[in-house]
C-alpha cells in the first residue's frame, strides 16, 4: 500500500510530472505529503489539495491507500 499523488494543469506542467507514489507514515498530513515529495519546492501559493477526491486542508491526515491531489484554482464553466 502507498499514497497515490496526482498533479493537474499548470502545477503538473511546472513539476514536469503527473503522478507520484509515496509510502505513508504515521500521522502524515497533506502538507507533509508535499514536503516528502518536493523538499526543495514550497507548495505554490493558491494550490488546492484533495484527498480521495474531496477538498482537503494542508493539515488533514492521510493514510495508506489514499489518493492525494494537488492543483491550481479551478477554472471551468
Amino acid at each position: 500500500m502507498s499514497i497515490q499523488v496526482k498533479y493537474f494543469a499548470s502545477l503538473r506542467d511546472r513539476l514536469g510530472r503527473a503522478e507520484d507514489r509515496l509510502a505513508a507514515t504515521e500521522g502524515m498530513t497533506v502538507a507533509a505529503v508535499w514536503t516528502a515529495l518536493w523538499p526543495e519546492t514550497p507548495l505554490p501559493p493558491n494550490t488546492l489539495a484533495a484527498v480521495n477526491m474531496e477538498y482537503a486542508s494542508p493539515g488533514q491526515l492521510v493514510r495508506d491507500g489514499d489518493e492525494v491531489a494537488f492543483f491550481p484554482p479551478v477554472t471551468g464553466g
Partner: protein
Amino acid sequence: MNIELRDAPFEPLAELERHQASQDALRGRYGATAIFVGTMRDFNDGEPVRGMTLEHYPGMTERHLRRIVETAIQEWSLLDALVIHRVGALRPSDPIVLVAAWSAHRAAAFAACRFIMEELKAKAPFWKREDAAAGTRWVERNTPG
C-alpha cells in the same frame, strides 16, 4: 437529472431538446426553465484566443458536479436539472457548459441555475489552457460571477 462530460463539441439546444423529450412525466408540472450556456470566446484579457484545452480530474469532477446538482435540486425543489460540460480541445464559439433547471416557479429556476454555475466554477476541478498568439497559457482564475 443528468450530468455529462463530453470530449467532443455538443449543441446545447439540441441537448435540451433531447432531454426535454424524455420529460414526459413533467409536462405541465414545470412553469419555469432557466438555462445557461457558457461559450468559448475568441478574446480574453485583451488577447485573441485561437483555441482552448479543458483539463479535468476524472472522478472528482463527476462527484462534485453530482453533489452540486443534488444540492440545488433539494434546496429549490427542482423538478429536473441538466449539466453538460466539455473537456478536451475547444475552438472559439464552442459551447463549454450547459446548465438547465426546471421548476414550478421562476425564482427557484433562476436561483438554482445560477447556484449550479457558481458552484461549478468554484469547485468542479476543470482547468482551462488557452492558445493565444503569444503561446499557450493556463487561465489562472475565473472571472467573478
